[in-house]
């Protein structure tokens, strides 16, 4: 186990990687190299990094379509992520998923899922598997506060609570379900009350300090691993960008954004590191390394082969029955 | 009281007629026997005259339409009568003969029939006539039928469909093939056809009649041919003498040949016979059919009692008949019931040819060109005129010896025309 300062440096490196990766993604999007939806995580980095740090090998993580942060935090390479954004064969989903659907089985990343609330029960299923096999692995399931209003969320939590599955539900409450503030979508402001009805632990805290996130998520993960059932965690956070690249975020004021930016998790961690004795050079070194890695990832993605028709056809099913399409037969 | 006027049957063999021209117009007052329209039949363009008196209220058939007899073509009645019901009735009866009104419905109304109720339609006639299509030129056939027709080289235009909308279905084609339906003739020099496809023309009623009758003749009449070479010097001299005595008129060699042939038949009546349904009909008149070429075919007006007429009379009659033939004004009866035919291609330089008999006649004389030829006269070789004639005989009624004997008589009359006076 690294010393506290070394661990924090690594957290900073991971958070800085996410931020630089997404800033480059935004640039590539503006250049037309990335299509479709692009949901940025900027401002929420401490949650992904802190939660990922609470896991061990074999644990499994489900996330929504705002999935770049957690993938990188779990250890996926920037190159695979950037290539996926650009629709390349070398991408983490071989160009089949794009921004919303990163997958990285090697690092326990079970995917970015596109339908709000649709993955909650699936994540419970992964936890069900751990209980069924007794493998003592834990599943993390992320979603936004918007998902707590949809049926899939409730059915997933209901069954996880009923069967005491080893899962931690993490609600990243970034205040806006797309453009709608929470006070206009939920009758209660303390979302852990929703989980209470399903008989599970609840926890609630701010997600700007990566150390806090790490510590509190770890408590829940440990409880799950010991067979004490699921936990619902609501983490207050704030995205600095719009819902997606096409969202000008006019539903919130500039003043509000500036106020929130004072709680930028990267700034907070940097301060903590300097207080713990890290030098400017230490931090500069990390930042330069990350920037070069991201630059290299963009270059590699630019140069990579485009997604392949053969993968498109062959990846639909594991069973091979011969071509089902004329186009498939013709290739 | 208004009534529907059907297309009359304008010749005994008319199975369909093309409305060539409406002479009367809607609104015209019509008397009995007034000319309503001209109709092109298998024989000629016929006058279609009214049997009714009244006002022509409605014309139901357009010019150019080919219709079966009795198909409603007009409504005649009193001025101002309501004829809506009659028009409906006429529509529902359209396209069929009087005996087959119910079946013929499917011809014009088939698009409203449900798929599930294919109507039985009259069986196709044994003749080579094409089946009528309810939908113009488009042939409806199932994909299977089209494929099989390609493989078997069948022209689907010859097959009648019994399915919905007249669709040709498998069993129609099977029946057609079992019945020995003719495969399409392989075009000679097919590559040439592909290089430049033929221009396709719809056959006229006359052309269809020629095709039908002559095919029937060649297929059913056992033909054989006898040719003689006639010394025509006497004929040339006789014509010269005759014309020298005529002021405005002139007789032709053909007129003399008609007279001679007719006289020969009178002298030797065994060649003046017809085979009719297992009986031999010995003709008591000598009526000569004369082939006349017209715009798109030929017709055969008849010179009645040619054996009893003078050459000049024959000449004038032939000229008058030929002129009306070219104008398609001959009446059917003027082209029916000849007993013997003459066809002359001599004016085109044809030396001799074998012609197809015009049933039910028993024989036909084909006349070749008059030509300069060395002739032996009194042991001396001299410049003379000769002419070949070929007799086509129906072996069922005219045997070889009979034909030969007829030609002996004919030869005498042609070489020595004065013997016709005996």
């Amino acid at each position: 186990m690294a010393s506290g300062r070394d661990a924090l440096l690594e957290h900073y490196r991971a958070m800085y990687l996410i931020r630089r990766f997404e800033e480059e993604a935004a640039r590539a999007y503006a250049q037309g190299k990335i299509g479709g939806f692009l949901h940025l995580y900027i401002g929420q980095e401490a949650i992904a990094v802190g939660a990922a740090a609470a896991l061990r090998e074999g644990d499994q993580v489900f996330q929504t379509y705002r999935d770049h942060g957690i993938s990188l935090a779990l250890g996926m390479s920037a190159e695979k992520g950037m290539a996926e954004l650009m629709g390349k064969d070398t991408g983490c989903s071989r160009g089949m998923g794009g921004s919303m659907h990163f997958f990285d089985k090697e690092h326990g990343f079970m995917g970015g899922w596109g339908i709000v609330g649709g993955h909650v029960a699936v994540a419970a299923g992964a936890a069900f598997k751990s209980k069924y096999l007794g493998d003592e692995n834990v599943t993390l399931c992320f979603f936004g506060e918007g998902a707590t209003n949809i049926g899939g969320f409730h059915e997933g939590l209901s069954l996880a609570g009923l069967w005491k599955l080893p899962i931690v539900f993490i609600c990243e409450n970034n205040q806006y379900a797309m453009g709608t503030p929470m006070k206009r979508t939920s009758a209660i402001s303390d979302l852990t009350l929703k989980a209470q009805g399903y008989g599970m632990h609840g926890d609630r805290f701010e997600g700007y300090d990566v150390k806090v996130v790490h510590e509190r998520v770890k408590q829940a993960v440990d409880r799950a691993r010991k067979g004490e059932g699921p936990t619902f965690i609501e983490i207050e956070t704030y995205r600095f960008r719009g819902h997606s690249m096409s969202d000008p975020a006019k539903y919130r004021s500039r003043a509000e954004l500036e106020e929130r930016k004072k709680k930028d998790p990267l700034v907070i961690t940097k301060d903590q590191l300097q207080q713990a004795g890290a030098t400017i050079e230490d931090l500069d070194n990390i930042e330069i390394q990350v920037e070069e890695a991201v630059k290299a990832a963009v270059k590699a993605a630019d140069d990579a082969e485009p997604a392949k028709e053969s993968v498109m056809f062959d990846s639909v099913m594991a069973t091979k029955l011969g071509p089902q399409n004329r186009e498939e037969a013709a290739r | 009281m208004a009534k529907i006027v059907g297309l009359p049957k304008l010749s005994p063999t008319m199975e369909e007629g093309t409305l060539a021209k409406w002479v009367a117009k809607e609104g015209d007052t019509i008397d009995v026997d007034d000319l309503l329209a001209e109709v092109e039949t298998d024989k000629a363009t016929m006058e279609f005259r009214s049997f009714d008196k009244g006002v022509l209220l409605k014309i139901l058939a357009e010019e150019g339409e080919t219709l079966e007899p009795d198909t409603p073509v007009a409504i005649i009645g009193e001025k101002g009568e309501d004829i809506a019901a009659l028009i409906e009735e006429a529509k529902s009866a359209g396209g069929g003969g009087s005996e087959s009104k119910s079946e013929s419905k499917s011809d014009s109304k088939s698009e409203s029939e449900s798929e599930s109720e294919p109507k039985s339609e009259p069986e196709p006639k044994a003749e080579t006539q094409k089946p009528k299509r309810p939908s113009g030129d488009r042939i409806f056939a199932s994909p299977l039928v089209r494929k099989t027709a390609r493989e078997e080289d069948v022209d689907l235009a010859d097959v009648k469909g019994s399915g919905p909308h007249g669709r040709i279905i498998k069993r129609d084609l099977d029946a057609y093939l079992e019945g020995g339906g003719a495969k399409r003739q392989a075009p000679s020099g097919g590559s040439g056809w592909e290089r430049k496809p033929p221009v396709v023309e719809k056959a006229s009623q006359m052309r269809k009649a020629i095709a039908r009758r002559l095919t029937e003749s060649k297929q059913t009449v056992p033909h054989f041919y006898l040719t003689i070479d006639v010394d025509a010097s006497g004929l040339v001299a006789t014509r010269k003498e005759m014309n020298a005595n005529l002021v405005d008129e002139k007789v032709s060699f053909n007129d003399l040949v008609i007279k001679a042939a007719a006289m020969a038949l009178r002298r030797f009546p065994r060649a003046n016979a017809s085979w009719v349904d297992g009986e031999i009909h010995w003709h008591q008149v000598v009526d000569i059919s004369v082939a006349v070429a017209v715009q798109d075919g030929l017709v055969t007006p008849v010179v009645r009692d040619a054996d009893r007429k003078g050459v000049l009379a024959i000449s004038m009659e032939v000229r008058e008949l030929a002129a009306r033939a070219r104008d398609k004004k001959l009446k059917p009866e003027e082209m029916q019931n000849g007993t013997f035919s003459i066809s002359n291609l001599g004016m085109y330089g044809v030396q001799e040819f074998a012609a197809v008999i015009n049933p039910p006649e028993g024989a036909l004389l084909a006349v070749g060109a008059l030509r300069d030829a060395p002739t032996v006269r009194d042991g001396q070789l001299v410049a003379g005129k000769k002419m070949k004639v070929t007799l086509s005989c129906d072996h069922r009624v005219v045997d070889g010896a009979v034909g030969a004997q007829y030609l002996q008589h004919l030869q005498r009359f042609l070489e020595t025309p004065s013997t016709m006076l005996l």
Partner: protein
Amino acid sequence: MREIRYREAVREAIREEMEADERVFLMGEEVGHYQGAYKVSEGLLSQFGEKRVIDTPIAEAGFAGIGIGAAMTGLRPIIEFMTWNFSFVAFDQIISNAAKIRQMSGGTFDVPIVFRGPNGAAKQVASQHSHSVDPFYTNIPGIFVVMPATPRDAKGLLKTAIRCQDPVIFLEGETLYNVKGEVPELDEEELIPFGKGRIGREGKDCTIVAFGRPYYEAMQAAEKLAADGIECEIVDPRTLRPLDIELLVESVKKTHRCVVVHEHWPYGGPGAEIVDQIQREAFDWLDAPIHRVGSLDVPMPYASNLENFVLPTVERISDAVRRVSYAK
């Protein structure tokens, strides 16, 4: 060969596969202590215990999702819908998740899961409980759709489904559970492959494609028509996705005529897909347009006289065969 009921054939397939593979489990409403709403799972709880025969709350989206997550991570769930009508509340799970995850993840995650249960109209259960759902699921790439008509097919195909590495929609016939039929002996394992149809009856005059419950109406119609000299060939594709188009085309090339019978509504669906593929592959062999006989285009009414009117009947099938045969 012994005769067993369709219900027993389904149960035997589940039991045998659960015995053979620890990863296989059965999950759904009333599958355990109640012994199955249609008694398909009778006796399985006592044999395999609560760990593997799992009763759920009424939460189709929830337990369908659990099944998908379990399948993605290495188990082999059999998810029972009490009837397929209730699958609509789990539609998103099946379509957006089960059918998509494999390709969306670039081939990383397999989803070996079986969704099964009774399909189609029962007897007078009215419109919300009478759906034949095959058109909804056959449209979707990424899943197999199986619709067996006979006990033997049900058993052989369900065993294949449970061993399949991909999601399978297994549509049992709600009114077929009591149907008896020949099934191989218990020691004779039979796996029927997907994408292979079966000739239910040979004939030379007209092909009837029929699957699921109306397979039996088609067989009756064929008997009736044979008395009038029209010999029908009944072809049951058994799996609708993938479709054994070769077998269908082979039959149509022989008979030149085809009627497609299905329980689903007339607009689109596998019935229309089958017609489309046959007309393309066998165009030159067709002597008549292909006709379809399905349920009438209305929600299912309660009254039994009307229900019988709506479902494909022997008479309507016979009429269609006569139409394409140009027979009176």
